[in-house]
């Protein structure tokens, strides 16, 4: 009876009481076409990822053939003699991101606990949460500008003090002179803090209320409950978030480039200028030619593999370690 049905398409309507609507050919084509279109768009994501891998790898092939694995261990970066090794940058990437996380993880998780565990009024909690989220939205180039002109001069006395007190260790044996590894690590802390805080906060909020009630019911204190019940229940998501933050720290470019000093020579001191793979790419890619482009692509490939491993490990940890309530 539907006005949509075509009489010719219903030869056997049962008793003529109602008719099945037959889909016209145009509608079938449209449905199928739209499905294929969206499928193609979804496939494009995989294509883009593959294209990135292929482009970077094919760009790096020349340098891979030329330098092989010695690229990973040599710290020579010499455009004049065309000798390239990325050890300085790889070391800088790993050290800056690990040390930044070492500082950011307690800060982030502490903040997340502070704004989930009913310590302060909820309006204040939401205000802190909002501020941390807005911090994540500030472009890294603006943070870099701030780091150059405000943060680095402000912490210089502290760095001088650390040089005076700890100058006998190789990690502090250079006089701080502006850009360097230590300010870069501090700006990385500012950049990954919102990620860790946001993920830890979500993880803590998802711990079932019954677990808290049970813990408080048998008479534990707030921090007894946090350390023994709540944190263990949320640990998988928190670890996953920390790994994501590690991936972000490794690939972070602008703020680090502006404050790390982009040194070509290897120096173990945290107060001396350093380099990371990402900042090396940002700094040199525009002016490079010949095998230097290829060497930079090789370094980019290493960065991609590092972040890939970290991100996949993060997903795996979240999936494997998550508790089932």
């Amino acid at each position: 009876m539907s006005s949509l049905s075509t009489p010719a398409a219903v030869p056997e309507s049962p008793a003529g009481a109602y008719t099945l609507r037959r889909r016209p050919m145009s509608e079938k084509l449209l449905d199928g076409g739209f499905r294929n279109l969206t499928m193609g768009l979804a496939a494009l994501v995989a294509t883009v990822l593959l294209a990135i891998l292929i482009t970077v790898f094919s760009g790096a092939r020349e340098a891979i053939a030329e330098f092989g694995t010695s690229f990973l261990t040599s710290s020579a970066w010499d455009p004049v003699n065309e000798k390239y090794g990325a050890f300085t940058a790889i070391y800088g990437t790993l050290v800056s991101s690990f040390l930044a996380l070492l500082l950011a993880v307690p800060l982030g998780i502490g903040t997340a606990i502070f704004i989930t565990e009913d310590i302060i009024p909820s309006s204040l909690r939401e205000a802190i949460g909002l501020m941390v989220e807005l911090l994540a939205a500030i472009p890294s180039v603006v943070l870099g500008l701030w780091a150059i002109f405000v943060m680095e001069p402000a912490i210089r006395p502290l760095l001088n003090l650390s040089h005076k007190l700890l100058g006998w260790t190789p990690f502090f044996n250079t006089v701080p002179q502006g850009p360097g590894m230590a300010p870069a690590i501090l700006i990385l802390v500012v950049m990954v803090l919102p990620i860790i805080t946001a993920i830890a906060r979500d993880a803590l909020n998802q711990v079932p209320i019954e677990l808290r009630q049970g813990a408080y019911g048998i008479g534990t204190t707030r921090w007894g409950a946090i350390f023994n019940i709540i944190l263990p229940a949320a640990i998988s998501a928190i670890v996953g978030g920390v790994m994501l933050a590690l991936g972000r720290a490794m690939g972070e470019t602008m703020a680090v480039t502006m404050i790390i000093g982009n040194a070509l020579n290897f120096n173990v001191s945290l107060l001396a200028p350093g380099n990371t793979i990402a900042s090396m790419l940002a700094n040199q890619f525009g002016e490079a030619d010949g095998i230097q482009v290829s060497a930079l692509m090789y370094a980019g490939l290493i960065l991609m593999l590092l972040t890939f491993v970290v991100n996949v490990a993060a997903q795996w940890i979240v999936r494997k370690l998550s508790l089932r309530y």
Partner: protein
Amino acid sequence: MTSFPQVPQAHSASSLFDRGTLFFKPSLGRNLFNSICTSIAGLFATIAVLPLVLVLLYVLVQGGRLITPSLFTQLPPAPGMSGGGIGNAMIGTVVVTLIASLLAIPIGVGGGIYLSEYNRSGWFAQVVRFCNDVLAGVPSIISGVFVYGLIVATRIFFGQSYSAMAGGIALSVLMLPTVIKTTDEGLKLVPQELRWGAFGVGASQVVTILKVVLPAAFTPIATGVVLAIARAAGETAPLIFTALFSPFWPEGIFNPIASMSVLIYNFAIMPYAPQNQLAWAASFVLVVMILAANLLARWITRVNRT
């Protein structure tokens, strides 16, 4: 009957249930530990909020006092010279972000529709979701390297190397995972009854998706898209060797173009005070735009929830 022998408190049954034990004793070890931990957490939260306050303060004060009408209408001055503005960089940021949005939003929403409406758990959907997560973790500078290798070095667009188009494509690579993810998750939240209802009154699948399901998920998708655009507008790393920079007004999308983020980077590391000042002014404009977009995204969520 009143003369009980004095027994050590800890062992007496009466003291175990003595009312006094129910009062809060701050000097108890566990209560001390409790207050110490709470103070540490409060201190950490303060330290976490401090950078935001300081960055915002400096950008708003340092940049805010440089805001003049000529800032929006003039070209940046030659190195070392004072005066001028960031007019070309503002237009450039809008152009590049627009190109990125026009590429990433249709592709991302379409891909998200496929994942949520056609193939929720098949192997192909799993592969696409995995690739999407990996793509989300690719460092932004790598997307610049990718577009450099694919478009800039090959001069694929009319023999042009650096171009606004290349910059827009590099940014779209960064936006794409966010748009797909928010579309996918947003559509999954739409109740199944809506789809059944639409099919029940005779709608085709395309009509169901475009006219019923997609509008129902408008809020989360719009929020995600606005956040992705805001993030793209502030990105620098993918632009420095794709869109490059230009001290002139934009000359079409197949030529190098200025952008505010690259201007901040270039002018921050110059040893001239006027350029540094312009970098602060550009930061002010960029931060105000991005914070406004973030607050807009929150507002979309709040308005549609009530």
